[in-house]
């Protein structure tokens, strides 16, 4: 980390000469795991070879959002977007575009159906419909350089708050903005801040919940990786507004890159006097701590998170008293999600009216979603509230790959529900998603196509909540386990109608009597799949059939003799691979599967490259 100099520099000798080009390489975890660091090294070497290092700046930014196309980079100022780069492509790219200024079409992004490459990033559908507020700095700044954050109006909000606004005004601004919790429940943040500000206690705490336990959700990770200072500045503003002097960022230990960038950001902020004693010369002080979560999903729940920070067993305790009244070590504690905090600085900067103008009547502002599953443009997107699910899937998501049909979209992680095709014109906001039986949740969206078995999906999510239940209260500890057993029975073809009735009754009771959010929302996958895909359950029970052929015990594998004989010439590959020795036949002749012996493992179906085998 080179020495940061803060004095305004004239063009002194060692001063940073202005660059003519910035190559913004995505260094989010997604792309890093796709070895984008090696791509950056290659870029550095090539630039040195053409001794362009003084003119062209290679910058590793946070997650750019378009994970499906990683490793990727954006060349500014021409705003050219290159995708799926390999190390071997770099020499050509550097010479052609960086040296000779001729963009290389071969490496550009071509949309799935379209043939023509789209050079400019803003023209690509994936980016066009998004509106970046929480992710305003993503892909534009190097997260490990505080100056670049300040360059894009960073810390002006806290400066404005400390000098021109009173704590009460700050809280009022958040109330007027209509900002609601981005963690999932959507509790109005302004109200929460007012409750905490009202408490008179000399010690109050501010907590940022970066536990993000939902599988398939990586919004908080990307925000911290691309723009840690936005979270820090948000917390500073909150602390000043509510009168807190110490803050905790509770972040998953499974996010090493985000953790490292957070520590770098905090260090730099402390060096600049933006954290610690009398910030920016005022008498406001704020100490920031980072606490690493030990991997328990339940610690995403407020009171369990508090117990975990206090060093106790991570298990929730009944509310009231709510954390704003008595949280960490009994002191008033305000907990908000990473995305909520990231929105705060810009609300203070641009004002509540501007923020309230975005989104729907009851859900203001934008929401960051991580779009995953059977979708072309897997990635991170931030869209204004009120956008329809259909737009997200088709306009931004680029539709379903391999021409498969859309079946359902699961929002809100394991505690969310599955929403079918006919509900896709639902505007995305807190109320409508919960009416549909799901919930906004932290923002994970899993798209499922026709090859997904909804019963198996419910079972998969129950496996998760069953293992992550803290085990304190009986309905959740035992209920999730029992629901999972019943669902397994159904997927194995032994389910009965009585099982279905017991499952439904149990799901309702677990939802109504569990102590904390985990238990109360764990049955959602079951309840929504039962509501929208009841026929699939009945098919599994009565007809012992799984249309999606996912539940193997219900599949029967059949070799079509003619295809096998003519196309496959009885190659016998399936016969050799079959673990149960259930396939008979000689070379050149049609092969047959003995249904009694067949263990339904599906190997033959996979290995036969003449698709002579089908599943009934």
């Amino acid at each position, binding site marked *: 980390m080179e020495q940061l100099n803060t004095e305004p520099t004239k063009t002194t000798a060692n001063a940073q000469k202005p660059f003519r080009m910035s190559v913004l390489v995505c260094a989010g975890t997604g792309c890093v795991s796709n070895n984008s660091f090696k791509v950056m090294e290659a870029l550095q070497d090539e630039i040195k070879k053409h001794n362009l290092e003084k003119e062209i700046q290679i910058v590793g930014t946070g997650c750019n959002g378009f994970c499906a196309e990683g490793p990727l980079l954006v060349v500014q100022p021409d705003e050219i977007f290159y995708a799926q780069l390999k190390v071997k492509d770099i020499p050509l790219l550097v010479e052609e575009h960086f040296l000779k200024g001729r963009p290389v079409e071969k490496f550009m992004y071509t949309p799935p159906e379209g043939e023509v490459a789209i050079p400019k990033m803003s023209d690509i559908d994936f980016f066009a419909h998004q509106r970046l507020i929480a992710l305003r700095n993503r892909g534009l700044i190097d997260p490990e350089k505080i100056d670049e954050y300040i360059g894009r109006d960073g810390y002006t909000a806290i400066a404005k708050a400390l000098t021109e606004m009173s704590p009460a005004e700050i809280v009022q601004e958040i109330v007027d903005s209509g900002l609601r919790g981005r963690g999932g429940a959507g509790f109005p943040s302004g109200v929460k801040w007012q409750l905490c500000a009202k408490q008179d206690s000399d010690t109050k705490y501010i907590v940022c919940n970066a536990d993000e336990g939902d599988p398939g959700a990586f919004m908080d990770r990307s925000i911290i990786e691309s723009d840690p200072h936005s979270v820090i500045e948000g917390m500073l503003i909150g602390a000043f507004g509510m009168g807190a002097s110490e803050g905790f960022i509770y972040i998953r230990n499974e996010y090493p890159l985000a953790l490292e960038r957070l520590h770098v950001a905090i260090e730099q902020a402390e060096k600049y006097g933006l954290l610690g004693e009398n910030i920016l010369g005022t008498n406001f002080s704020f100490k920031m701590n980072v606490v690493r979560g030990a991997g328990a999903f339940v610690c995403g729940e407020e009171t369990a998170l508090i117990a975990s920070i206090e060093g106790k067993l991570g298990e929730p305790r*009944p509310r009231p008293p709510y954390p704003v009244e008595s949280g960490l070590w009994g002191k008033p504690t305000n907990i908000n999600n990473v995305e909520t905090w990231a929105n705060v600085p810009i609300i203070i900067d641009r004002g509540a009216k501007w923020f309230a103008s975005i989104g729907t009547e009851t859900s203001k502002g934008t929401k960051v979603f991580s779009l995953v599953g059977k979708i072309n443009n897997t990635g991170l997107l931030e869209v204004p509230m009120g956008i329809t699910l259909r737009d997200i899937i088709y306009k931004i998501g680029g539709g379903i790959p391999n021409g498969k049909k859309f079946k359902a979209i699961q929002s809100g992680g394991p505690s969310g529900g599955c929403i079918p095709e006919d509900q896709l014109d639902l505007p995305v906001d807190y109320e409508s998603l919960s009416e549909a039986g799901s919930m906004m949740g932290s923002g994970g969206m899993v798209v499922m196509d026709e090859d997904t078995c909804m019963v198996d999906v419910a079972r998969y999510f129950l496996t998760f909540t069953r293992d992550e239940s803290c*085990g*304190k209260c009986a309905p959740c*500890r*035992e209920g999730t386990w029992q629901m999972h057993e019943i669902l397994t029975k159904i997927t194995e073809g032994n389910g009965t109608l009585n099982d279905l009735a017991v499952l439904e009754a*149990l799901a309702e009771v677990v939802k109504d*009597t569990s102590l904390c959010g985990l238990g109360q929302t764990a049955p959602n996958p079951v309840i929504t799949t039962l509501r929208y895909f009841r026929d699939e359950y009945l098919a599994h029970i009565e007809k012992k059939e799984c249309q999606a052929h996912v539940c193997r015990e219900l599949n029967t594998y059949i070799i079509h003799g003619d295809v096998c004989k003519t196309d496959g010439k009885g190659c016998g590959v399936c016969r050799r691979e079959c673990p149960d020795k259930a396939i008979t036949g000689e070379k050149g002749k049609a092969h047959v599967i003995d249904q009694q012996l067949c263990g339904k493992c599906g190997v033959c179906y996979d290995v036969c490259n003449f698709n002579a085998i089908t599943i009934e």
Partner: protein
Amino acid sequence: MISLKINGKPIQVESGTTILQAAKQLGFEIPTLCYHPQLEPYAACRVCTVEVKNEKGNKLMTSCNSIVEDGMEVQTDSDAVAQARKINLQLLMAQAPAAEIVSEMAANYGVGDTAFLSENAEEKCILCGLCVRACEQVAGTSAIGFANRGKDRVVTTPFDVQNEACITCGSCAFVCPTGAITMDDPFGREVIHDEMTLGPDKAITVPFMQAVPNAPAIDTEACIHFKTDACGLCAEVCEPEAIDYSQKDEIEEVEVGTILLATGFKTFDASRIAKYGYGKLPNVITSLEFEKLSNASGPTGGDILMQDGSVPKSVGIIHCVGSRDDNYNKYCSKVCCMYSLKIAHLMAEKTGAEVYNFYIDMRTPGKGYEEFYERLLEEGMHLIRGRAADVSDWAMNEDEEGKLVIRAEDTLVGAVRRIPVDMVVLAVGLEPQPDAEEIRRKFNISCSSDGWFLERHPKLAPVSTFTDGVFLAGSCQGPKDIPETVAQSGAAVAEALALIDRGYVELEPNTAFIYEEECSGCKTCIPLCPFSAISFVEDKNVSEINEALCKGCGTCVAACPSGAAQQHLFTDEQIFEEIKGVLSYV
């Protein structure tokens, strides 16, 4: 005050009261499993769920921890509540099939057996956390806690290793609703409140029903508050707030004219005779422990039970344990034969067991004692004349299997016999109190060779001692039974009252005195007097003896160089003459 309605009935309660407490005041029973009035509510079992209607609409809430709010309408038995309770109870039944309390509670909610799968039929623990909270909030040691998540959640000690912090106070076992925690101590440490030991079962008890004063006292050795400064439950529940932990034992100095020593006896420690197996073999008890068993207010409520709780079918009573024995006490303890016969009779009457008495000589010295002995013989009690050799659980044939075998030589038959019995009562003899030596020195009285206090004269002054004003009563002076003790106590009190009533004290006739004119004031005598009876008269420059203090030992007289000090009845002349006299005859 908060006003709300429960099942339609209005009620006003203090703010901060929980719904459960308010319901109880109205007499509505709400089932609970993980709730205990003395512990913080934990809301884990969810069985206390009730339906609450307030402005936000209907919601199911747990009543044990939810605080009442104004205008709340609570239903403790709506069908939503019943359904939730039924499913939750079935879940708990599936998790802990062996927990009777859960199946009973489920039964009166019309749940036969659980609709859910259960993995371990013996499981009793429903993870209610009462034990963990008791250990933390009552015992103040937090020796146990929860570990793991979800279905693998267990109550255990850190790293499943025996935790030194555990003070075996038994709070966890006491509070466990399903009996999942039992009180055995694999590490041989003293278990304060093991059910079957005959020690006190609580740290605050009335020692026994007839105790005087008949008021509970705290045993500071066993009380948790004195160990970890936590608990304090007794003070909490005592309405008259009569409990004051700061009280300490006080030493009071009382000026008295007479002292009556009645320090009693100790029973012979039966474990000193290894071969009788007391303390090692189960069901070998002493006669005093038998008394505790047969005592209606004892741990077994008067039933004679063996350690495993069953009734013995055959009992052996061994006489003269530690008495009439060269290795232990030579003397006969006088009372054992009669109380052994009483024990035999009680045993036969209460358990109908076959009773065998092993005696050397059946001593029935009192009024009606012999007749009692005759009666027992008619009742078919077995008597074996011979000191029991040993008691062992080593069986030589089947019917001795699992029994205690008493080996004794039957001198009347002239053969060694082996009697298998279920229980052995050792008629332990009487011994002076262990601190007799210390008491003796303090009161300046002497002891007989076997440690009993020595009376002034066996015939002429049996209840007084060499020190005037100190009298003896009861078995501290020698083994005796209750009638004799009562009689002797009467005598001792009479002697004491006589002394008190007289109003004056007879001085020793043989006190010392000083001839003033002879005394040269050399003060040799003054430091010699242990009773500081000699003082120095400054103006006359002579020593002077205070006759009331002088005990009359004459030590000062022997030391006086000038013969100024003399002793009544033992003057020098008298003694010289006496010496001449004794030497004058042949």
